[in-house]
């Protein structure tokens, strides 16, 4: 209601600004006088320099070529984005050395640019281009532009070759068994990594997002397996992202997230190509962004955060045990401090008598109530974790170990906090790490359940449990129900327990499109 109105208002303001920004850019760039090349080389070059500005990494070299070097042309490229030898080898060398005259005979009516492209330049990817805007865009993204005096058309030759990070081990999802390669910042290597895994029927659609950054974004999906509505919806959403610069894939994540205010993420990301290809084969769509090693996979199910790549490479019984362990530790991470508080302040009756005596003794000196104690400890733990994360690796490790030990011991001996609290918080902290992709959700829910159990005891945190269930049930990611219920009726073989591979014959129904047989005999053969 109120907020909707607010939302609409903000959107109006943004969109009005956008329109103004848009037409400014048009005015400035596509000034009518320079919509197409003039033909005279020097003027063209000056025009381009005017537009692009005099940044030092843009190189323009003019040279003469031809039978008795009467033609002159210019090559424009960005130093650092291109592979210099490639330019020399495939463009300059043939042009300068090639003396055959039949090409340059002025008498022949054929266009010199076309002749040069066909017979002289030995590079696989050469394209004609007239509009200066496209030419500028080309040499800005690593190709070289070759203009010849006297002609209105230029050539774009792909000579990309900047030094890119090798395909190394993933940082966020380390794994013991299974492939270890991970996506890199380079757009082409990512698409290549995916293509290597799914050779036939993988379609990679290309889009450009971001007016200034012109980052290229690819949608990878398998035709027939993907759900057409989800695909169209995603495409329409990506189209109307009007954004200045697309730095990282998380920008897209926030734009296409349907329910920005719910705690749970409905767009999943991964760093490993085998995980990405497994998800694509299950009927999802992968979004690869240039310059970001994280590939988004849409739509996301709640179960996904409990499935790791390793589950499918390890024996089923062990994988099932791991799966159940993850669920339990997810619950522990959220509810352990709440249970501790409600037990010690509300339902002492449920603690065995001897344990109650030790608890009472441990809490003898401590001044605070159970809630404040555990709140202090959880807060201290969060500070420690953040510190450990942000510092460079060697120092980070030291901080977290020293911090935990010292803080725990000192607090107990100084009598600020009882020993049982330190234990419970330690368990919650460690349990929180078992499900890495949900750490943000866990920290928030942990605090809410602690508050409720401090005021209402056992009843309090059951209320929080129900609230989580309701919120999960009402979430949908791209129309697909996010949480199938704790005993999923349809594809149970892959949620709690991980049945052997050969039993998982059909793709998850909620995701897949028409062809959902993925193992064993398909319909036609």
């Amino acid at each position, binding site marked *: 209601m109120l907020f909707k109105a607010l939302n609409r208002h903000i959107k109006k303001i943004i969109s009005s600004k956008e329109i103004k920004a848009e037409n400014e850019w048009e005015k400035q760039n596509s000034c009518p006088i320079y919509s197409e090349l003039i033909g005279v080389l020097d003027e063209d070059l000056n025009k381009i320099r005017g537009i692009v500005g005099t940044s030092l990494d843009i190189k323009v070299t003019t040279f003469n070529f031809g039978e008795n070097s009467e033609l002159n042309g210019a090559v424009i490229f960005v130093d650092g984005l291109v592979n210099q030898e490639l330019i020399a080898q495939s463009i300059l060398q043939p042009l300068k050395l090639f003396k055959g005259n039949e090409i340059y005979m002025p008498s022949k009516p054929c266009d010199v640019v076309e002749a040069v492209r066909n017979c002289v330049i030995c590079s696989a990817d050469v394209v004609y281009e007239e509009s200066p805007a496209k030419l500028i865009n080309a040499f800005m993204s690593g190709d070289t532009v070759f203009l010849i005096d006297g002609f209105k058309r230029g050539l774009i030759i792909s000579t990309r070759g900047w030094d890119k990070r090798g395909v190394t081990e993933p940082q966020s999802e380390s794994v013991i068994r299974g492939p270890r390669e991970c996506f890199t910042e380079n757009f082409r290597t990512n698409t290549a990594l995916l293509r290597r895994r799914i050779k036939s029927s993988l379609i990679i659609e290309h889009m450009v997002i971001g007016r200034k950054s012109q980052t290229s974004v690819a949608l990878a999906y398998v035709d027939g397996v993907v759900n057409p509505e989800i695909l169209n919806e995603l495409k329409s959403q990506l189209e109307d992202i009007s954004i200045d610069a697309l730095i990282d894939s998380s920008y897209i994540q926030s734009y296409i997230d349907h329910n920005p205010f719910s705690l749970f993420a409905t767009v999943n990301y991964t760093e490993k190509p085998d995980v990405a290809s497994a998800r694509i084969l299950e009927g999802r769509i992968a979004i690869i962004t240039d310059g970001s090693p994280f590939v988004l996979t849409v739509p996301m199910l709640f179960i996904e955060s409990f499935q790791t790549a390793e589950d499918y490479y390890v024996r089923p019984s062990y994988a099932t045990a791991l799966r159940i362990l993850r669920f339990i530790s997810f619950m522990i991470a959220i509810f352990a401090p709440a249970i501790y508080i409600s037990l010690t302040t509300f339902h002492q009756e449920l*603690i065995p008598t001897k344990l109650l005596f030790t608890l009472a003794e441990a809490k003898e000196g401590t001044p605070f109530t159970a809630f404040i104690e555990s709140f202090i400890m959880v807060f201290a733990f969060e500070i420690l974790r953040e510190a450990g994360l942000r510092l460079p690796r060697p120092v980070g490790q030291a901080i977290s170990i020293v911090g935990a030990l010292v803080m725990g011991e000192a607090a107990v001996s100084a009598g600020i906090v009882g020993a049982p609290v330190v234990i419970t918080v330690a368990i919650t902290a460690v349990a929180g790490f078992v499900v890495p992709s949900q750490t943000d959700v866990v920290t928030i829910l942990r605090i809410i359940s602690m508050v409720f159990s401090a005021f209402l005891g056992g009843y309090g945190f059951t209320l929080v449990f129900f609230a989580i269930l309701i919120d999960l049930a*009402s979430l949908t990611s791209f129309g697909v129900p996010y949480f199938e219920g704790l005993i999923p*009726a349809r594809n149970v073989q892959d949620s709690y327990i991980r049945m052997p591979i050969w039993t998982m014959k059909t793709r998850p129904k909620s995701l897949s499109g028409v062809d959902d047989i993925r193992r064993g005999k398909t319909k036609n053969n």
Partner: protein
Amino acid sequence: MLKQSRTISKMQMLFSIACFIQASMLLTSFFTPVGGSSSWLAVISSYLVFAVFTIPLIMLIKNFPDKNLFQINAIVFGKVGGKIVSAIYLIFFWTLSSLNTKDIGVFLQQTVMTKTPTYVTIFFLMFLCAWATRKGLSVVTRYASFFFGVSMIIMIFSFIFSYNLMDFSYFLPILDIEPIRFIQTTNVSLNIPLGEIIFFLMIHPEVRDINKNSGKVVYIGSFMGMLNILLVVIHDTAILGEAGKLFTIPTFETLRMISIGDVLSRVEILFAIMLMLLLFFKISFMVYVTTISIAEILEIKDYRRIAFITAALVYISSYIQFNDSYIHAEFGITVAPLIWTFIEFFLPFLTLMIFIVKQKYKKGSEQTA
């Protein structure tokens, strides 16, 4: 006027019926003092009677697969008559949900939160139910199978753990109570757990292809729910014996008795959690149905808008239903069985009969015309 968007599957409906019946485990303390040691027989006989009495309900579902109860009344009884009959149902739904809210409040007050006033505990529950209703039926019934599974496991475990306390000779003088008492127990056990299937007549259009084997769904669901109630009754009579009459919540007392070794001695928290799960499901379902029925009668297009208002209505009326709990217990045994049976079984039967008669009359008039 309600957009019936086929959201839940038949399996979910089956489990929600089972959960729904199971949740009135707390109300067994109504009829166990009357039935005494042979109340478990009354529970079984009530299921048999229920099997016969639901036939009109299933026939209604089969004849009107995509019309909920109020729309059926409108068709059968015409515009005004339909409204009156639906009003009776609405009062029944509203009273039943407020009585159940009162029960959970009393349960919490007597076992876990003795000094917290019930206003606070029920307020949060009502907020959650209204929020679930606002999100739609698929959210309310999605966890039915989970709740049923958990409570069934906990029930079986508590049965096994308290085996050494059980003394099966308490059942021995079989049926030594007067016949009227036995009929009374059967009637109460027929209405309170089983009769509430009428609630499902409001939502059956939302179930995918309900008309195929809706009979099977109702019977299996109620059987699974009834199994659990039977387990509870046997469990209580076997342990408490004559002392069963004393306690307001016998099942809670029996679970406090379980103590195996020093470790597994205080397990009644399990029972409290189980009951919380079930009652939350039941009350959110009832609030959902009450909201739809109010929206139906007042022809409000989007029922979700009045979810929180109905929750407030149920919250307040749970206090004004019966002032002291003695009259509530008295009403539950003496007058309620008659009223409930009239509304739960006789009215649908009447609707069906009138519908059939009308159909014959129409067929007859077509031939003559």
